[in-house]
């Protein structure tokens, strides 16, 4: 079973987001980078499925040269090879992103049984790249999945909904988007990090089309900055806390 997982480099935002003066990006000078949480689980799922069923796993990203760091991170936990669609770091809209991924998949000598995405990216949250890729490739697309099991050429997917789990069964090849919680991603080992340095990464530079969902500027939401009422320090605060809980009616 050959699996492709698509990931996106995003900043580790911490407690407060600051913008660059031109309002085009998050100020990342003091931030580290990662990939979206759902995608980390997508990579882990790809590795587990290959461990169970054989085959190989590939990680793809569309992003700046620095995004190689995220490809190597995923190869360090067990992904076999990488595809880097290089950009200059400017934002690509969902249609452009999907088109570049479709072109990369069509041009790849490797055919994929399963193409995994995160349900939505942590930063832009457009909820659509996987669906657009599936339509362009003529594949089924199952979204927001928290359990995958493969039986021959059928994939059973479970989705959490209010009141239980909805089940879908589709034939491969298929596109599946996953949600965090489907698994607990492993951490890279030191030998894993060393192996990752030698794994192959295919690099190409797609042309960026005009954005049709065009980001004009980023806006920080109006500060809900509250002045918290300090109820005290340490254990001595307990009576004031309970008084508040009584006022609210929960004690």
């Amino acid at each position, binding site marked *: 079973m050959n699996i492709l997982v698509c990931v996106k480099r995003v900043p580790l*935002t*911490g*407690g*407060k*987001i600051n913008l660059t003066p031109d309002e085009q990006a998050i100020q990342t000078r003091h931030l580290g980078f990662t990939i979206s949480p*759902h995608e980390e689980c997508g990579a882990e799922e790809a590795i587990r499925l290959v461990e169970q069923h054989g085959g190989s796993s590939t990680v793809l990203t569309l992003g700046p040269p620095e995004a190689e760091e995220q490809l190597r991170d995923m190869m360090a936990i067990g992904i076999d090879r990488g595809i880097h669609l290089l950009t200059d770091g400017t934002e690509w809209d*969902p*249609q452009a992103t999907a088109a570049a991924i479709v072109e990369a998949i069509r041009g790849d000598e490797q055919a994929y049984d399963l193409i995994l995405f995160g*349900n*939505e990216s*942590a*930063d832009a*949250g*457009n*909820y*659509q790249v996987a*669906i*657009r890729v599936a339509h*362009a490739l003529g594949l*089924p697309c*199952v*979204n*927001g999945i928290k359990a995958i099991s493969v039986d021959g050429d059928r994939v059973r997917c479970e989705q959490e909904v209010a009141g*239980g*789990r*909805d*089940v*879908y*069964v*589709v*034939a491969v090849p298929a596109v599946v988007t996953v*949600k*965090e919680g489907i698994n*607990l*991603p492993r951490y890279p080992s030191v030998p894993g990090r060393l192996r990752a340095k030698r794994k192959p990464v295919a690099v190409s530079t797609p042309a960026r089309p*005009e954005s*049709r969902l*065009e*980001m*004009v*500027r*980023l*806006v*920080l*939401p109006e500060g809900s*900055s*509250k002045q*918290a*009422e300090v*109820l005290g320090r*340490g*254990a001595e*605060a*307990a*009576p004031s806390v*309970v008084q508040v*809980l009584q006022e609210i*009616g*929960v*004690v």
Partner: protein
Amino acid sequence: MILVFVEDPTDELSQQAVAFARGMEEEIEAVTIDEGAEYAPATWARTLVARIEQRSPSAVMAPGTDRGNEVLAHVGAMLGQPMAANCVSVTPGDPASVLRVRWGGSLLEEAAVHGAPLLLSTAAHVVAAGPIGDVETLPVTADASELDQMVRVVERVPATTAGVSLTDADVVVSGGRGVGSAEGFAVIEELAELLGGAVGCSRAVTSAGWRPHSDQVGQTGTKISPEIYIACGISGATQHMAGCKGAKRLLAINPDGEASIFASADYAVIGDLHEVVPAISAEIRRARGG
């Protein structure tokens, strides 16, 4: 004319999507899919596309729920048009201008949408739900292809939950990295139980394997709206705050008086949760005369 996809006429978020569309001062047409039809996103989208072709709406709106976004994204792919997810406001035009949610609400984006009809989903709790009015029920279209129909719900496995669920709880007591270990959650569980509430945690905790992901409050976990949220040893990363901003009140307990969670808190206790939380539990027992 604006076409609104109503995922579920009884659901608040669908009602909010209709209210959002009403704010546009255009004729609106609200449609839902036949209740008997099992959920099949591409088939449902194909049904909407057939109606779009008949009625040529200027905009198509859906609630910013998992399924609202999913169906609308299929519509976008079928029509080859852009789609803006989770919008908080819109100014019609060519291009239309929208303000939409990023980072689970920690950031907004002003975007120009180049295409017609304008496809957008509405962010939760931007407008109040009003009376939903007439909703037309559409039978699923015969135009759906075999591929469209392949993805459909074939089975519903009922949940086997015990205790108070995070989404419904009036009180949520959560622990973060500051709890220090899986065993450290005993004090959090004790307080939650005394208050008849649910236990939550931050992403750092689930990543460490101390609690299951089902306990995680956050952008990629559960979004909660209790009467009071008691956050213990949680620094207040944007990932976490995206999940608890629906709480009516926030009490933060943290030894670091500079922790960013205090900027969102109504009440603050500066101190080590391992001292503060057991003291609160003891005080509740005392108040109850136990």
